[in-house]
């Protein structure tokens, strides 16, 4: 029993102050734990910034990155907790539990699985409506809606639900195998992408369909069979597809003319197409995890098509347009979206007149459609738009008996650019003749880059690597035909040029979504453009120029649209970060500054850092060790008193440790000496004259708030402390009404080299204090700090830089600590502020001179 209890009540070691050896080694051990904690703190804070930046940047990121970053973060916080518990001889054990709870919650968020709704494996077309999208996918749900609610012709058929797909994958254990392979995949390595993709698709195609699903499919096919024979189309209808967040156009396969016995294998192939190369890349770019896309499929009776094609209820780049756009070709018109067939292009006015404008014909002098058919088609397109409430992209076919069928409808992803008269002006002023002119704007915009022609799969494998983290791609994809297969390259190019095809192709849809300018149907483009050639593509004006046309390129400031916003991965990261980055613990003096108040990982790091400092500070005190307790810095002429605590090896070997004072000459802490040099470099000139208004605000403030700065540790209230060792320094300063904390660590390892700075307060009113931190923030950013301002509080950090870089910044920080205080009393006088800023800048400039860098002597008191 006693043994059990002793695990919880380890008595505080009472070290004999007369045993210096034991004391020293105990202290050393504490100090090592302290350093471990500091390094982990530094890593954790950096990772928090990284994660936060990811959330707000435009670059896509995948689940792997999210998990990697957050796991590393958790590992570092774990180390902090353990270091603190060791450092404090077992206190704060409650932190373990808090940490476990918070990381448990984060893990739950990260492994969130989308819910598969419903129980039915198959739904007949007659039963389907819009609200069934979460079972059958948007494609089939919309078709059901069009058939059953709007009452237009949609071929009969049935939908195979996401539940069925899940059942199929689980029963055959295929999903586990797939997950295993995907985990190791680097999608930027196209060769391995295609290999793994091929393997996965084979796995699915060869997996057996569960008996219940196979017989359900058979039953429903029977119902569709007319006069003994049945041909169906089998298409993907993924959940999450065709929504506002992404069209997923052309990402999955379609099977046409499938006979009854072939339906199961066609279905498996559709499911397999989820793992096509371009689908994997597309998901990555759009912020979807593989498990976020649930595959449904639809079987529909084949239309014996005489004519078919695509209709846009409004042109993709003009939601206000008065025209309906129709593409038509003989047969099913499926080749239109694949970009491989010539077609009729018609505009029909949306008013009652229904004027028809023919913009192009597949066969000269022969229109695919009769006037009546054109108008009926336009009417139905507008009907569908009205029903769904937004412009629609519609696939249609007219059978040999003249009946119009709707085969697919989805919202058009709008990519609208703002009108810009300057840009139009620039266009007109260009004197050089274009290399190529004409074609069709598939996606608006202007870009310049080097040509890379792609004619076959091998060319894809040789495609230039994606640009680095923050770089813009400078490659232009040039093809003969805009096959959807090329979509896998969309994140590596700044523009697309195709000799054929038009705006209704899948590739164009994806280009618009990604904000990549695309010019199609540009005759001879493939033959006339050379690999490596630099060109400027103005897709909007339908021109291609030799070289870079800077007059035009200045108008490409429009950012690529943030594809990730609102996507599943983005949302997961956002949710996980609510348990990580918000800081609730702020005031160390508050009774709420304890483990049970920690709600986020940031709270835990704050708690650990603060308590670790307190522990180190108190160590000397507690054990009555003269050499470890605070000594006063003996210096004349500084506007404050400075106290020093030696954490390890911060004093010179032969320093007189019995004295309550310590001389600056006896301090060998490199970071501390840098700060000191900055503090003493320019003589203190006293506070600036205070205006009457400024003074009034200070008096009012002081009256309201006796404890002006709750951020100061009460044990150290009223004093300024250096906690130091040879390579570490932590300085907390209270000068006038401000509180500042500077912490620096020097090491040969970048991981352990950093400078942190926190600043808060000031005696003047809120507005002035805020203005001051803004000015301070600008000054710090100017010398390389990463700055974060909240209200009148500022935190600034520099991480992982060589010591020489940090030294220079610390000197300037030391200077700022002394010289900016109380300036905010006069913040409302712009002229005075400007004068002080000039002085600050000039002084900083002086501090940056190389000659000062060289001399590492101690600052001499003025």
């Amino acid at each position, binding site marked *: 029993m006693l043994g059990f209890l002793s695990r919880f009540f380890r008595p505080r070691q009472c070290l004999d102050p007369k045993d210096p050896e034991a004391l020293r080694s105990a202290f050393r051990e504490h100090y090592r734990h302290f350093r*471990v904690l500091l390094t982990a703190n530094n890593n954790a804070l950096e990772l928090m910034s990284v994660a936060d930046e990811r959330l707000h940047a435009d670059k896509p990121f995948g689940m*792997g990155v999210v998990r990697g970053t957050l*796991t590393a973060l*958790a590992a570092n916080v774990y180390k902090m907790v353990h270091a603190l518990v060791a450092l404090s001889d077992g206190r704060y054990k409650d932190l373990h539990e808090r940490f476990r709870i918070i990381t448990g919650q984060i893990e739950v968020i990260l492994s969130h699985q989308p819910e598969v709704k419903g129980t039915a494996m198959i739904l007949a077309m007659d039963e389907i409506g819009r609200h069934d999208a979460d079972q059958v996918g948007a494609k089939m749900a919309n078709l059901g809606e069009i058939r059953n609610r709007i009452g237009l012709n949609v071929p009969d058929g049935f939908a195979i639900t996401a539940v069925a797909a899940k059942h199929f994958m689980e029963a055959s254990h295929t999903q586990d195998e797939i997950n295993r392979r995907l*985990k190791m995949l680097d999608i930027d390595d196209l060769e391995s992408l295609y290999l793994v993709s091929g393997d996965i698709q084979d796995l699915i195609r060869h997996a057996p369909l569960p008996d219940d699903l196979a017989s359900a499919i058979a039953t429903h096919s029977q119902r569709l069979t007319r006069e003994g024979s049945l041909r169906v189309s089998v298409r993907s209808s993924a959940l999450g597809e065709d929504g506002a967040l992404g069209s997923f156009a052309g990402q999955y396969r379609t099977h046409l003319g499938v006979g009854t016995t072939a339906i199961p294998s066609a279905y498996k192939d559709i499911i397999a197409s989820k793992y096509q190369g371009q689908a994997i890349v597309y998901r990555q770019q759009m912020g979807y995890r593989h498990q976020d896309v649930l595959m449904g499929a639809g079987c529909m009776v084949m239309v014996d098509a005489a004519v078919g094609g695509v209709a846009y209820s409004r042109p993709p780049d003009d939601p206000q347009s008065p025209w309906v756009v129709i593409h038509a070709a003989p047969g099913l018109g499926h080749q239109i979206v694949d970009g491989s067939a010539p077609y009729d292009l018609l505009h029909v006015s949306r008013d009652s007149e229904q004027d028809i404008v023919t913009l192009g014909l597949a066969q000269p002098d022969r229109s695919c459609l009769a006037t009546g058919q054109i108008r009926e088609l336009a009417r139905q397109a507008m009907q569908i738009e009205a029903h769904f409430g937004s412009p629609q992209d519609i696939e249609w076919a007219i059978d040999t008996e003249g009946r119009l069928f709707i085969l697919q409808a989805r919202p058009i992803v709008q990519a609208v650019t703002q009108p810009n008269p300057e840009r139009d002006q620039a266009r007109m002023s260009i004197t050089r003749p274009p290399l190529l002119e004409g074609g069709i704007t598939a996606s608006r915009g202007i870009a310049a880059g080097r040509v890379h022609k792609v004619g076959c799969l091998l060319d894809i494998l040789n495609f230039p690597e994606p640009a680095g983290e923050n770089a813009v791609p400078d490659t232009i994809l040039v093809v003969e035909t805009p096959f959807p297969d090329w979509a896998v390259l969309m994140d590596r190019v700044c523009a697309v040029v195709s000799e054929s095809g038009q705006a209704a192709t899948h590739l164009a849809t994806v280009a618009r979504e990604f904000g990549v300018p695309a010019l199609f149907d540009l005759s001879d483009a493939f033959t006339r453009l050379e690999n490596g050639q630099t060109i400027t593509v103005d897709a909007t004006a339908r021109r291609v120029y030799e070289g870079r046309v800077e007059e035009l390129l200045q108008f490409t400031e429009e950012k690529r649209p943030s594809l990730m916003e609102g996507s599943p991965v983005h949302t997961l990261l956002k949710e996980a970060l609510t348990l990580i980055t918000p800081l609730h613990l702020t005031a160390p003096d508050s009774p709420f500054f304890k483990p049970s108040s920690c709600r986020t990982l940031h709270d835990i790091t704050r708690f650990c850092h603060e308590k670790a400092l307190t522990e180190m500070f108190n160590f000397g005190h507690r054990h009555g060790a003269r050499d470890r307790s605070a000594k006063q810095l003996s210096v004349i002429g500084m506007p404050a008193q400075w106290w020093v605590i030696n954490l390890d090896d911060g004093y010179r070997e032969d320093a007189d440790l019995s004295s309550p004072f310590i001389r600056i000459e006896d301090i060998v802490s490199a970071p501390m000496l840098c700060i000191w040099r900055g503090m003493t470099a320019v003589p203190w000139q006293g506070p600036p004259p205070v205006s009457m208004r400024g003074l009034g605000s200070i008096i009012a403030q002081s009256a309201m708030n006796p404890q002006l700065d709750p951020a100061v540790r009460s044990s150290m209230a009223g004093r300024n402390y250096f906690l130091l060792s040879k390579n570490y320094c932590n300085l907390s300063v209270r000068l006038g009404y401000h509180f500042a904390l500077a912490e620096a660590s020097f090491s040969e390892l970048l991981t352990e080299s950093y400078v942190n700075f926190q600043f808060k307060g000031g005696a003047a009113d809120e507005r002035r204090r805020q203005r001051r931190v803004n000015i301070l923030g600008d000054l710090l950013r100017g010398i390389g700090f990463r700055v974060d301002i909240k209200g009148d509080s500022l935190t600034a950090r520099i991480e992982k830089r060589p010591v020489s870089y940090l030294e220079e910044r610390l000197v300037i920080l030391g200077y700022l600590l002394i010289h900016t205080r109380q300036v905010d009393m006069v913040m409302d006088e712009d002229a005075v502020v400007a004068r002080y800023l000039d002085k600050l800048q000039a002084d900083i400039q002086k501090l940056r001179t190389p000659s000062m860098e060289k001399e590492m002597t101690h600052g001499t008191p003025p």
Partner: protein
Amino acid sequence: MERPHNILLIDDEEDFLQTTSRRLQRRNFEVRTAPRCADAMPEVIAGWPHVVVLDVMLPDTDGMECLRRIKQEKPQLPVVMLTGHASMQASLQGLERGASDYCLKPIELDELVEKLIIAYNDAGARAG
């Protein structure tokens, strides 16, 4: 900062073993490799490595079990866990069982070297 010299890499990915060991050797480390835990244990028992780099997904015994064995033999020997995919549970479990640090593949060589040095020096602290 003391620099460890003998590094033992335990990983079932041949590519990773080859590339990483070459790169570490260029940085003046002496490197031995093992594709499975069983192959690694003799080195551990003999006391050769200063730091062990361990992949948590090993074929013959899972990484956690290997970690346990190593710590049983040499409690003070620092082990840095490496993994190709992140699992918060796995990494925290590893740390709880005595791993010094946790890294995600692919890892930059500079970062790995610093982690090895830190792990080596921290272990010294714990021992002392």
